[in-house]
């Protein structure tokens, strides 16, 4: 009798110990990952508030002796040439990314809806063709696209970037949105149509609001992709006043190879818009992935 009770108790204790082991392992692992993720970003911030001289010391000043916002002031001051360039690059990036985002929502929503609702010959082929776009690296398309853009007169315009960025946002956008539409019962639309709505009204009034999280996720994805894109911008644009931030920063750095505080400040400011956007809207993004992409 007593031995059975004892074994049971022992087993329980062992089980609890092993669960605690997993839990502690998980915590330690998360702390490690937090350090891996955050320390580089903290070091970026700390460097950005040093003077150029203070950054170039060995051993480094872990905490800046004389913190200064000079780098930020320089970048944001429209009076000097560095600030002028930076603000212009920032504006260019904002314009290109916003235009890309709006256009990709306009294009992706009907396409995803059709892929979800209709059967037409070639539907599967077209769907996978769209998805396959993501398999190919930008470099494959660079030369021919450059020639194409030159032929239609888009080289050195932001239009060339917007058109190109559209295509790499689209596949995931369509895929995500299709998952959403698959989960919205057809009966809802049918009910609206019986009540006298046209197909278009049913779509705008019933389906669109229900798929809002998917549309928001799509928009975030396109915006971030366009904001961070580098290769096409690097190849298609050569005029200084048209550069977007990633290329602009690279050019800035190749001219000022030792201004690490300035570079870190620029990297930080380039990251702020997308990080803020993502943090504010991230729950839509995770939800969209859960409902759209994963829960098939």
């Amino acid at each position: 009798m007593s031995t059975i009770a004892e074994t049971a108790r022992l087993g329980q204790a062992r089980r609890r110990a092993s669960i605690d082991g997993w839990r502690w392992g998980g915590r330690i692992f998360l702390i490690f990952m937090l350090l891996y993720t955050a320390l580089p970003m903290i070091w970026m911030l700390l460097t950005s508030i040093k003077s150029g001289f203070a950054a170039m010391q060995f051993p480094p000043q872990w905490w800046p002796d004389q913190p200064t916002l000079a780098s930020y002031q320089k970048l944001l001051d429209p009076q000097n040439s560095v600030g002028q360039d930076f603000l212009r690059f920032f504006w260019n990036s904002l314009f290109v990314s916003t235009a890309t985002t709006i256009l990709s929502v306009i294009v992706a929503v009907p396409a995803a809806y059709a892929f979800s609702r209709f059967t037409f010959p070639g539907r599967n082929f077209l769907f996978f063709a769209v998805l396959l776009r993501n398999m190919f690296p930008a470099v494959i398309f660079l030369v021919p696209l450059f020639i194409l853009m030159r032929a239609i007169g888009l080289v050195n315009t932001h239009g060339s970037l917007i058109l190109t960025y559209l295509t790499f946002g689209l596949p995931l956008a369509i895929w995500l949105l299709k998952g959403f539409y698959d989960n919205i019962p057809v009966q809802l639309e049918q009910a609206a149509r019986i009540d006298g709505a046209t197909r278009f009204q049913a779509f705008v009034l019933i389906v669109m609001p229900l798929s809002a999280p998917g549309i928001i996720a799509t928009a975030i994805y396109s915006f971030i992709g366009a904001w961070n894109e580098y290769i096409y911008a690097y190849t298609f644009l050569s005029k200084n006043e048209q550069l977007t931030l990633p290329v602009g920063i690279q050019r800035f750095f190749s001219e000022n190879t030792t201004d690490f505080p300035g570079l870190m400040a620029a990297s930080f400011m380039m990251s702020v818009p997308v990080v803020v956007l993502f943090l504010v809207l991230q729950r839509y993004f995770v939800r969209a992935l859960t409902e759209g992409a994963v829960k098939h």
Partner: protein
Amino acid sequence: MTIVAGKTGARRRLRPLPGKIWEHRADYAYVLPAIAVMLIVIAYPIYYTIELSFFNTPPGLQLRDKIFVGFGNYTAILTSPVFWKVTSNTLIWTLASTFISFVLGFACALALHREFVGRGVLRAILIIPWVISAVAASYIWKWIYHSDFGIIGAVLVGLGLADRPPNFIDSVSTVLPSLIVVNIWREFPFAMIMMMAGLQTVPEQLLRAAKVDGANAWQRFWHVTFPHLRNVSTVTILLLAVANFNSFIIPWIMTGGGPSNASHIWITHIYELAFGRQRWGVASAYSVLLFLILMTLGYFYVRALSGNERKDAGA
């Protein structure tokens, strides 16, 4: 009218194709904008790349004065030692980045699955590297790895582990692993988000039932959670593999492929051949080879995705 109604599809399938296409003409209007953009930006470039891969374009020559060389570019590539060096770099880069990112991301998703104080904040911080630009990430890490003022070197010296700061990205033996660390830093959050989304679909009842039956944490994970996530895992790994295979920014900005090709991967090499040395023909031939490899990967990607579709249809 054209809304899928299950059984009527069988009757429709008997009609001849042109009639079917005509009948569904209105449906194409919805996908037309997407397809048009895709055709311009994808189909044409692919055709042009294949054509160019059979030509030689000596530097200084206009592209239209190209010289036909048949498979010359391909044999030149496959017999050059640089090709094998770059290929092995690409393999190491892709496999290591994909595998480690996936494992770290999955582990984070599991560790974050349980509710605890500060979970949301932690999750948000872990995702940030994935959101910021790869150009910014490259510069941040370039500064961290800096051979004179880099923080890692300073820490190693401070702890007495090194006499002087090591040269992380200027040395042939350490450059590739150093860049992989940066790449993983940027990529594991993607695996984490995907797996977190996947974990939410694992039915809680099954886990509880397994617990009642005496399964321990590892057994519950291995026999219940993991099989449930097979599809998500496949898609995530394939997407990571493709993204890594196609990476460009991190090696390009941090090292430009150097020192002595030690961090050149396929894409940076192609870019350099095309835009640096103007050898468009060879670069195109490289692209075509790359294309074939990616199509193979793409086949598995589509199969993994249509596996989902089939299950969807069955449910």
